[in-house]
């Protein structure tokens, strides 16, 4: 769906927002439409993406991993090599530039694992703007390193102690801040979620991933046979998938199955959720039988979210994309496998996609190609992985 004027992907999306935010959302949409195809804006963004963030990222043939799996060729789209260590900078540069054009002086953001917070702090530092980042208290503990990074980059981090103290609560708190400071503040949302136009805008800024894959694969052979990315809110996935939905590629999104889909401890919204309204959008949600949002679990803070971008809900219902999941245990295995076979430490989020790729590769022909978006690097996660290994007696 190119640009859904009513903000709907099929029945999903929309804008369920407090009235105070309506003028801000309208101003945002107006400016986004004005600048998204503007030559100067695109040139400026392109400059920062290339010279500052390090695009294009390589499409690396993971020969050792492929041979270990014994099937299809696995290619890694190396978003982990971007400045900041994750795909998040694609979106923060785009939105921060837009905010600058809109003369907004104050930027707020939410963050889960801290990657979006760091990417926001970087974009704001380089573009000369002030940023404040809301982060669930629980996440500030398990991703302490990113809190330090944000502080050093000049961002103010607000730990959020309400609710489950994770990403969903950080979004609630950012929205409350936005309602309070609506005229001065730009809300730089980090995933393809929220009220229209955020899901489509974030997708557009992240689509550079899929566009590059298309070009890079063409040089190797053809379009990829299988494309895989992890899905929390779903921004790296939609950026990977969207340019490829009209090809013949089989597309798979991978959610966090945590301790298993049958346990209560997972974040697999599309695999196990139902339709509902949260954070300004209609989408699949993890909720109880009365419509209360349930607490989620994932070893990766970045996937620990009970909702998902509305376009993913649409792609699931139209069956264009399959949504699978990987458990914490599978993710740790994949994390270690990639680390040891290729010398690449993936983010735990991205390791969900690797886990799926390992399963799929084994069942695929050697002539086939799998592209996996490696959305971020795992330096931030080594402590968490060490803790997991110690706890499970593996180290």
């Amino acid at each position, binding site marked *: 769906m190119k640009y859904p004027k009513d903000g709907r992907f099929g029945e999903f999306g*929309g*804008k*369920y*927002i*407090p*009235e*105070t935010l*309506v*003028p801000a959302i309208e101003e945002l949409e107006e400016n986004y439409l004005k600048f998204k195809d503007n030559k100067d804006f695109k040139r400026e963004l392109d400059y920062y993406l290339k010279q500052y963030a390090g695009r294009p990222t390589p499409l690396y043939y993971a020969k050792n991993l492929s041979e270990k799996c014994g099937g299809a060729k696995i290619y890694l789209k190396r978003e982990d090599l971007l400045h900041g260590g994750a795909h998040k900078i694609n979106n923060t540069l785009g939105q921060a530039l837009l905010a600058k054009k809109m003369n907004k002086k104050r930027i707020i953001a939410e963050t889960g694992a801290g990657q979006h917070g760091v990417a926001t702090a970087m974009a704001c530092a380089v573009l000369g703007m002030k940023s404040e980042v809301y982060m669930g208290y629980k996440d500030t503990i398990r991703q302490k390193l990113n809190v330090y990074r944000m502080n050093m980059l000049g961002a103010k981090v607000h730990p959020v102690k*309400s*609710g489950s103290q994770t990403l*969903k*609560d950080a979004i*609630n708190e950012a*929205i*409350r801040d936005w*309602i*309070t*400071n*609506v*005229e001065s503040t730009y809300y730089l949302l980090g995933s393809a979620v929220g009220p229209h136009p955020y899901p489509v805008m974030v997708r557009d800024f992240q689509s550079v991933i899929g566009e590059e894959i298309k070009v890079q694969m063409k040089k190797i052979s053809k379009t990829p046979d299988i494309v895989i990315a992890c899905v929390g809110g779903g921004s790296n996935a939609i950026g990977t998938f969207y340019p490829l939905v009209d090809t013949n590629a089989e597309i798979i999104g991978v959610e966090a199955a945590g301790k298993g889909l049958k346990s209560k401890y997972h974040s697999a919204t599309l695999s196990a959720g*139902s*339709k*509902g*309204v*949260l*954070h*300004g959008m*209609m989408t699949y*949600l993890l*909720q109880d039988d*009365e*419509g*209360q*949002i*349930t607490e989620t679990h994932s070893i990766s803070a970045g996937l620990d979210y009970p909702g998902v971008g509305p376009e993913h809900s649409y792609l699931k219902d139209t069956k264009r994309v399959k949504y699978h999941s990987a458990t914490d245990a599978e993710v740790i295995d994949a994390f270690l496998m990639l680390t040891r076979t290729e010398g690449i430490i993936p983010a735990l989020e991205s390791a969900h996609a690797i886990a799926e790729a390992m399963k799929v590769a084994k069942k695929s022909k050697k002539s086939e190609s799998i592209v996996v978006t490696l959305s971020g690097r795992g330096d931030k996660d080594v402590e968490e992985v060490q803790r997991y290994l110690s706890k499970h007696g593996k180290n």
Partner: protein
Amino acid sequence: MARIKEKFAELSAKKEKALIAYIMVGYPNENATISAVRGLIKGGADIIELGFPFSDPLADGPIIQNASTVSLDNGTKISRFFNIVKKIRKETDIPLILMTYTNILYHKGYSKFIAEAKNAGIDGFILPDMSIEESKEYLASAKNMADTIFLISPNTTKSRIERITKSSSGFLYLVAVYGTTGVKMGIQNYTLNAIKEVKKITKGKIPVGIGFGVSTPEDVKKYIKAGADAVIVGSAFLKLIEKTPQNKLESSIAAFTKSLKRQTVQT
């Protein structure tokens, strides 16, 4: 659903404005809710808003957030909520409005939820995250069943206010400040201007109530003087409920309500 309209007509005949009180059901427990409602009625509240808790109340400040969490932890469920409403309905004919978030209605199905609520004695709904753009099914389900009270903000444009007014019944809920519920920011000039502007646009077709951060008799007095047809007080009641023991709750609430209500009676 006639109750709200009749109440405003009755008040208008007496040259009074409306005091609307909000409490969160099940905070801190069901007994407190019943006592608080009795105190509100005794103190002269004209309309009562009953909050049903939602896990992610993004338009609410810390006080209502906390009350939501406590209520949910106490096991407040939709069926229990409706039982409390029925209990209240047996004692009083006061207009009752249900305030919650869109997902609670959407999840059960708008029609089903609204029918059950009406059956229990609810007269209208306030959903702070229901925008006019997304309200088609909600409005169709509520038609001839319950009042749909939409919120407007000091930054809402004239054409939008006109559009929202067309879909509103009961009253129009003007949010006093840029902010969440219960946060004290003092009375702002932009709010006083907004009341006048909104009244100009609505031309008396629908009453205009003002809420968010309204907490003292002085606030009530100033907003009534600026032209509001109703004032909505919420977080201040929750604060009082929090610090008052159960055996004094009814009388404390009644006394505070009385001090607020006095300011809505024109002398």
